[in-house]
């Protein structure tokens, strides 16, 4: 098989047109999903069964079914109800864009909630005890002691989840959205040249994911001063806290 380079370049530039939509869907669903995920994770660690149980059920259902089912239920399924078709939500739920973003957000919330819960539970009990002993409690304890440590602990898992989300946005093409994979499918069915199109689209996804991985590695480094080599002396460290 000979690779046709002009066609390769043409495919690449065409596929780049899908990148903004891919990124938008990722960003929108990751941000919304994160808010819901924090809520779910707090419900899971609340030690109150009437909060824990619904969160568990939510996570079980969204992790146990394919994302494609979730997208189809929202985009195609909801139109079965006339009540909904006449509600104020309909202008949103009618559009593939909002349906895909909603499904992606609900889906990632379930996975992220478990990552966040893992991070929260990883904070050593002794440190929490020590904070309580100094009189911290409730929100202050969460904000000053638990959350900063949990955040660092869950970064690797969360970076994986974002990569999964970048890949998952491809499913938006099944509900007519023309993001990278949607354009790729169209190009393939027009040209019957799957290999060239696949190489271009694959390279685009790998590039996006590479950037995500590097960004998270940098963030983890920035948030982990104690894992870096200790400074030679304290004298050359300016008082950052007051600056």
């Amino acid at each position, binding site marked *: 098989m000979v690779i046709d380079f002009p066609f390769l370049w043409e495919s690449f530039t065409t596929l780049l047109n899908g990148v903004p939509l891919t990124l938008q869907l990722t960003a929108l669903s990751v941000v919304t999903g994160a808010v819901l995920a924090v809520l779910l994770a707090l419900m899971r660690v609340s030690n109150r069964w009437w909060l824990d149980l619904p969160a568990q059920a939510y996570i*079980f*259902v969204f992790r*146990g*079914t*394919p*994302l*494609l*089912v*979730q997208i*189809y*239920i929202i985009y*195609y*399924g*909801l*139109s*079965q*109800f006339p009540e909904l078709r006449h509600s104020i939500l309909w202008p949103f739920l009618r559009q593939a864009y909002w349906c895909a973003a909603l499904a992606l957000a609900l889906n990632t919330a379930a996975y992220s909630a478990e990552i966040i819960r893992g991070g929260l539970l990883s904070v050593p009990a002794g440190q929490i005890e020590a904070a309580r002993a100094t009189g911290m409690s409730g929100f202050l304890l969460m904000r000053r002691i638990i959350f900063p440590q949990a955040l660092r602990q869950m970064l690797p898992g969360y970076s994986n989840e974002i*990569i999964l989300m970048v*890949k*998952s*946005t*491809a*499913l938006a*093409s*099944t509900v007519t959205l023309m993001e990278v*994979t949607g354009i*790729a*499918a169209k190009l*393939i*069915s027009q040209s*019957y*040249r*799957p*290999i060239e199109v*696949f190489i271009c*689209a*694959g390279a685009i*996804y*790998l590039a996006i*994911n*590479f950037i995500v991985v590097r960004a998270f590695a940098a963030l983890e480094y920035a948030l982990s001063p104690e894992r870096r080599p200790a400074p030679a002396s304290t004298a050359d460290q300016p008082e950052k806290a007051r600056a």
Partner: protein
Amino acid sequence: MDYLQLMGFGPNGWGYGMLAATGMTVAVALCGYLIGSVLGSLGAAAAFSRFMPLRAIAGFYTTVLRGIPDLLVIYLFYFGSSSVISAVGALFGAEGFVGAPAFLTGAMAIGVVSGAYQMQVFRGAVLALPKGEIEAARAYGMPSFLLFRRIILPQAARFAIPGMGNVWQLVLKESALISVIGLVEIMRQSQIGAGSTRQPFSFYLTAGALYLLITFVSGRGFRLAERRAMRGVRRAA
């Protein structure tokens, strides 16, 4: 028509269709999973190879396949093999596009993707092996193959079970994507039903419930296998 009639086994019910489609989902997922196990173990073996090019190929395989959408891989396999088949068909005078068999291409696509994940699971399991126990086996005169069969394999299998369970769940859910190339599994059957009855919610909800059932039951199965395999490992007090 109410829901129970719709999904029932009566003359107008879709029960049998959905049941057969469930069987198809399990079959294609299982085939893809097994193909993935073969590719994953080959990949893991290559990753531990002394031969640098083999290690590089294995690294490339797992990085690329875990970094791109599964749907893209399914399209590549379907259109790729279809264009090969069409080209062969043209030699014999057939005209136009000939579609590749959806089951085969779907299972292959899932296999190649899950192989990349299974490779990581196997690699992790081998890295988790206690070095001292392998050394002890060597010190007792075990030749490499015996050592692999009696000491490495049973222990690595044990460490691999949880990860293998995760990959199986992934494969089951991934199999829904094969509906885009026309294989009549749960998702495609639901699309057909939704189209002809105009009750998409009922069908997709049923599809979701069926997936949930399969993932739940197989999750239980893996947990049981894990408990059996973890005999002899100290439980956290």
